């Protein structure tokens, strides 16, 4: 903590132009004793110290940095970062310099940095990350995913009806997704939190999505969450970070192409299949309208995929949230007039996220109503 400096609370003297820097130094109380030898350093040496610092850090932390680079969305930035970090990471690995960080990670209870693409392998780096960093156990990986199912019959026969929740036998709801999913989770906690007939497990994680499996492997995380919480209902709200290209083997799926849609739909289907196979119903909450028309169009495209996939699975319902945050004419609105006339803010200033508390609760109430309708329960 910053303790060395004296309190600058003496009355401010009338400033003059000359010598202000000296006065500031005096006010900060920065030099009370005679400076130690080596205290003042020439700029060239500062640069040298800085380079040595970053050099050492790079050498010791290269594997972790390389992993982050691999997990970044495809593009020039990722390519350059990987090209620079790969040889350093390989050297770091060969000299076992990465052991320090791995030790630290283990001590903190985290998995060490994985080596996507296999750093030790000879030959050029892979054009794309092979499936995801194994930071979590019990995963169903995208690479080993079974082929997409043939269209199942639209039937609820496979799932027993949900019992009306009671305090003795509460409804177990798992909520997953990205930062918008976090907003929904907060809203659900507000709306359902005090209800003894419900147990809510909010597990959404910001900055995640289904597109970049190397960065965050949702199918694996969902498998873990399903095994841990045994939910009867899974609420999913994800997609805000997904309008991006991703790698499939050695091929890049560019957003907006048929290939991208097919690949992304498979990932959505994997999530739905996992949850329903574990005996849970799924409420898939669509992306809301966004302030940016271009971003809105991207989200509408994702919503189309979610809705289509939801129709293919028994026990999965899609909830459109588009109109909740739009004016009657269909334009984006950050505000909403309540029944009592109060004007409340329902979206964050970034034009993307849902504003607490009014926006989050609005979204949560819609989700609760949809669950009641779809799964024939009363909350």
């Amino acid at each position, binding site marked *: *903590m*910053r*303790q*060395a*400096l*004296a*309190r*600058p*609370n003496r009355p*401010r003297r*009338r*400033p003059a*132009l*000359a*010598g*202000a*820097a000296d006065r500031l130094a005096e*006010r*900060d109380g*920065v030099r*009370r004793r005679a400076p*130690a*030898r*080596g*205290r*003042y350093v*020439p*700029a060239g040496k*500062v*640069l*040298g*110290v*800085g380079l*040595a*610092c*970053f050099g*050492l*850090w790079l050498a010791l*932390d290269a594997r972790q940095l390389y992993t*982050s680079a691999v997990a970044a969305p495809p593009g020039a930035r990722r390519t350059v970062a990987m090209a620079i970090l790969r040889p350093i990471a390989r050297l770091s690995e060969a000299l076992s310099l990465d052991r*320090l*960080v791995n030790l*630290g990670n283990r001590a*903190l209870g985290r998995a060490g940095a994985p080596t996507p693409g296999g750093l030790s392998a000879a030959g050029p780096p892979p054009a794309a990350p092979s499936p995801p960093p194994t930071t979590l156990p019990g995963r169903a990986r995208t690479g080993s995913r079974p082929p997409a199912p043939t269209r199942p019959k639209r039937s609820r026969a496979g799932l027993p009806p949900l019992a009306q929740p009671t305090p003795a036998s509460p409804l177990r709801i798992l909520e997953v997704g990205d930062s918008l999913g*976090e907003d929904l989770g907060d809203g659900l*906690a507000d709306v359902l*939190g*005090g209800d003894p007939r419900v147990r809510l497990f909010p597990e959404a994680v910001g*900055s995640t999505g289904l597109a970049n499996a190397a960065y965050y492997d949702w199918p694996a995380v969902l498998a873990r969450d399903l095994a841990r919480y045994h939910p009867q209902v899974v609420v999913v709200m994800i997609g805000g970070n997904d309008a991006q290209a991703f790698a499939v083997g050695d091929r890049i799926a560019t957003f907006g192409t048929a290939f991208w849609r097919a690949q992304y739909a498979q990932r959505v289907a994997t999530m739905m299949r996992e949850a329903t196979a574990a005996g849970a119903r799924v409420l898939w909450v669509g992306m809301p309208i966004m*302030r940016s028309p271009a971003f809105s169009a991207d989200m509408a495209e994702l919503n189309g995929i979610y809705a289509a996939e939801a129709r293919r699975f028994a026990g999965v319902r899609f909830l459109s949230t588009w109109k909740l945050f739009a004016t009657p004419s269909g334009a984006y609105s*950050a*505000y909403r*007039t309540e029944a009592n*006339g109060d*004007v*409340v*803010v329902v979206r964050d*200033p970034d*034009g993307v996220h849902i504003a607490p*508390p009014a926006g989050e609760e609005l979204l949560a109430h819609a989700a609760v109503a949809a669950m009641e309708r779809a799964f024939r329960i009363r909350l």
Partner: protein
Amino acid sequence: MLFPTIDFAIFFGIAFVGNWLLRPYRRAWKLFILAASYVFYGWWDWRFVFLLAASTLCTAAGARLVHGAATEAGRRRFLVATLVAELGLLGWFKYYGFASSSIDSALHRLGVHGDPIPLLQVTLPVGISFFTFMGLSYVIDVYRRRLEPSAFLDVAVYVAFFPHLVAGPIVRGSELLPQIHAAHRRDPRRIDLPQAAYLIFGGLFKKVVISSYVASAIVDPVFNTSPTLHSAAEVLLAAYGYAVQIYCDFSGYTDIAIGCALLLGFRFPQNFDAPYTARSLQDFWRRWHITLSLWLRDYLYIPLGGNRGSRLALYRNLLITMVLGGLWHGAAWTFVLWGALHGVGQAVGHFRRARRTARGLSPQREGTLALAWQRLATFQVVCLGWIFFRADSIGAAFGFVARLFTGWGAPSPLVRLPVVAAIVGALALQYLPRDLAERAQEAFARLGALAKGAVLGLVLLVITTLGPPGVAPFIYYRF
């Protein structure tokens, strides 16, 4: 551009080299630093660069016009025009939505059901409150004849200088302009590396490790949900945790800013001084966001009359200053209440001190026990204020406060030893002897260049290993 990112490290490396290589060439140096600062700011959104340029133009032209006016009335007119323009920009971006929705709701309650005021949600450009306040201080200082107007390029660099641009410290014209003017005289052989490194790496540790951990372990899980979901112990720990989080976040930022400026050969004023050791609210504001409290004192409290009038006028001035200080942080009633709490608290403190002085006693009780009690009590009031500062709405804030009295006995799964230890440890650090940091810097100064680099590299490794992946923006960016 966020400080704790690779992007900034590369940017700063280039800025550092250019800064020292171009030092002898006055104009080239200023143009380079200005360009670097605009790149730094435009990294968020290039459109905001125009706002920064407009604010700079307003500041420079306003000061020139004030200075060149022939009469006092003319000086005053130009000052008012500049204040209106600058505060208008700030108001539009920061307060439009708040004002229009509040007025609309009030009209509805009064039974007026006309057309709603057009609602626009304006994106808040980062740092606008900071550079607007810097510009205002410069123009007012010129009006008060404490400063001569500087050349346009100097003013442009003063307003946009990237280390202080987005979250302060709020550096006065009288502090920075002379340094910019004499930038060619900075000595490139005398950079205080130990102090700069201490500030930068200490700031990074506070921000990336402590603030992030406390936020994710207790503060966000409590404050992002309904008060009824948490026990009194959880709410209490979350309030203390937020005190630690916001201190580490904001002071971490300003430490990095001051350290970066030092490496470039500039001195910024100090912004924090162990604020949680304060023994009164008045003392707290001498230690917390010092540059803002001095700004409010010099440009708001004293012009309002300060402590020159009756005692009642003094209390009124304190309250107005603190409420406006609260509103400076954001357009929300929670900030208004936070400011009001500090205003009333300071007025009460002032009243008690005046009463003791009138009885011939020292303004505050002395002695170890009294000091401990004063510190403890001040910290509790400050944390009560932080609940309002952090909560999403006034209703939620009162809900959390009520929970402190009603929620005992409920289970507290979020109260765990590591998070309690982190909070207690971070608070205890404020009580470390003042010269400990100085001694650490001197020990570091005695190391050779390679050893210095190795030490810093290892510290960086500790920070990146302990910190979470990804960096959350600094809390004060949105103010």
